[in-house]
C-alpha cells in the first residue's frame, strides 16, 4: 500500500512546485518595467520615512508559546497510535493512557499557574 500511494503524491508535489515556479517567473516576464526611484524600493511604513529596522526585540511570550507547542504537539501525535488500538487494549491500556493524559493535564495546569498563558 506504500509505493503506489507515494507515486501520485509525488506527481502532485511536482505539479504544484512547477506551478509555483511558473507563477513567480510569469510575473517578472509580463510586468512592465517602469522608472525605478529610491523611495519605491523602500520598506512600506504608511508613506512616512523609515525610522529603523523591523528586526527588533519582541515579546518572549511568542517564544514560550512555540516551546509549549512542541511539547504538547508531540504528545498529541503520541496519542494517535493508542487511539487506533485502544479498544483492544481494554481497561488496563485505558488507565495507562489516563495516567499519560493526567501528566499532560498537570503540565498544562502548571504552565497556567506559572502565568505562561497570560497575554495582557
Amino acid at each position, binding site marked *: 500500500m506504500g509505493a503506489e500511494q507515494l507515486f501520485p*503524491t509525488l506527481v502532485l508535489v511536482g505539479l504544484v512546485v512547477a506551478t509555483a515556479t511558473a507563477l*513567480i517567473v510569469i*510575473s517578472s516576464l509580463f510586468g512592465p518595467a517602469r522608472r525605478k526611484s529610491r523611495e519605491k524600493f523602500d520598506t512600506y511604513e504608511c508613506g512616512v520615512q523609515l525610522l529603523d529596522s523591523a528586526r527588533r526585540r519582541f515579546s518572549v511570550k511568542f517564544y514560550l508559546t512555540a516551546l509549549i507547542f512542541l511539547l504538547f504537539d508531540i504528545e498529541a501525535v503520541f496519542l494517535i497510535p493508542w487511539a487506533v488500538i485502544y479498544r483492544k487494549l481494554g481497561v488496563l491500556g485505558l488507565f495507562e493512557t489516563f495516567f499519560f493524559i493526567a501528566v499532560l493535564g498537570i503540565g498544562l495546569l502548571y504552565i497556567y499557574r506559572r502565568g505562561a498563558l497570560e497575554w495582557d
Partner: protein
Amino acid sequence: MSTLEIIVTCIKVLAVFTALQMAVPVLVIMERRGVSFIQDRVGPDRCGPFGLLQPFADAAKLVFKEDITPRHVDKLLYFLAPAFCLIVPTVAFAVVPFGSGIRIGDFTLSFQIADFRVGVLYLLAILSMSSFGVVCAGWAQNNKYGTLSALRGVAQSVSYEIAMCLAVVAVVMSTNSDSGVSSTAMSTIVADQGGTYLGFFPKWNVFTQPIAFFIFLAAMYAETNRTPFDFVECEQELVAGYMTEYGSMKFSMLFMGEYIAMALQSALLVTFFLGGWTLPWVDLGDGSIAGGIASVIVFLVKWFAVAWLYIWVRWTLPRLRYDKLMDLGWKALVPLALINIVATAFVGVWLRS
C-alpha cells in the same frame, strides 16, 4: 503499476490539482457576492454573468503588474514564501477522499489521490508546515507590519494546531477498526460514517463527537487566519500583514494559498465530521459509475455548505482580542479536547466489554 494505471493516475492528479486551483476563484466570487448580500449591496456584477469572471479579471490584472523586490528583503525567503504558501495546502489535499470510486472490470478508479494507512499523520505533518509560509513571508520582507503579523500568525496557528490534533485523535478513536482496516486512513474514516443508526439517523461523527466538531471548527478558522481570528492581516492594524511588501503574482500566490487552505480545511471538516462523500440513506460506494459521480456531487454540496459557513462567519462575527484568542486556545479548547478524549475512551471500552 501498469502504464495504463500511471496515465490514469497522472490525469487524476492533474484534474484534482486544477479543481483545487479553480476553488480559489469560486471561493473569491462566493465571498464577494456573499458579503454584498449580507451588507445589502450589489457587489461585482460587470465581468461576465453575475460577475462570475471577476476573479479571473483580477488574476489577469495581477499578472501584468510591475514585479518589484524591495531593497531590504531577505531575497531567498522572499521568493520562497509565496511558493510555500501555495504548496503546503495543495500537497495536504492528497489524502482527502472526494468520492467513492468507480470499478470497471478489475480496474478501480479511486476518488482520492493517495490513501495512506497513516493518512491522518500525513495530514497533521503537512498541516504543521502551514505556518512556515507566513513566518518566511513576514520575516523576509523586513517590515514592521510583516514581522508582527508573522509573530502573531505562528503563535496563533501553533496554539490551535494542538486543539485540532486532539480533536482528530477523538475522531480516530470513534472510527471502528475491528475488521483489520487502519482507522487512521482517511478512506476508513469516511467509510465508517456511511450508513445510519436505527435506519434513519446519519452515522456522522458530528453526532458522536460534537465537542470535537466544535473544537475542530474553531481551530479551522484560526489555522486559516480568518475572522474572528484574523490577527495575521487585520486591515485596520497591520495593513496587509505578511503580504504587505508583496506585489504582482507573488501577492496573488499568497492569496491563492490562503484560499486553498480554506478549501482544504472545509474539505477536512466534511471528511472528518460530516460523512465525507457518503449519503446516509443510499450506498454510493458500490463502484458503479452513477454511484461514483453522485458521491462526488454529495461531497461538493457539503463542501460548499462549509465554505459558505466560512464566509458567513467572517461577515457576522467581530475580531477577538489577541489575549482572548490565546485564552480560548490554551485554557478552553485544549483541556476540553483532553476531557473529550478521556470520555470517548471510557465509552469506547465500556461499549466493547
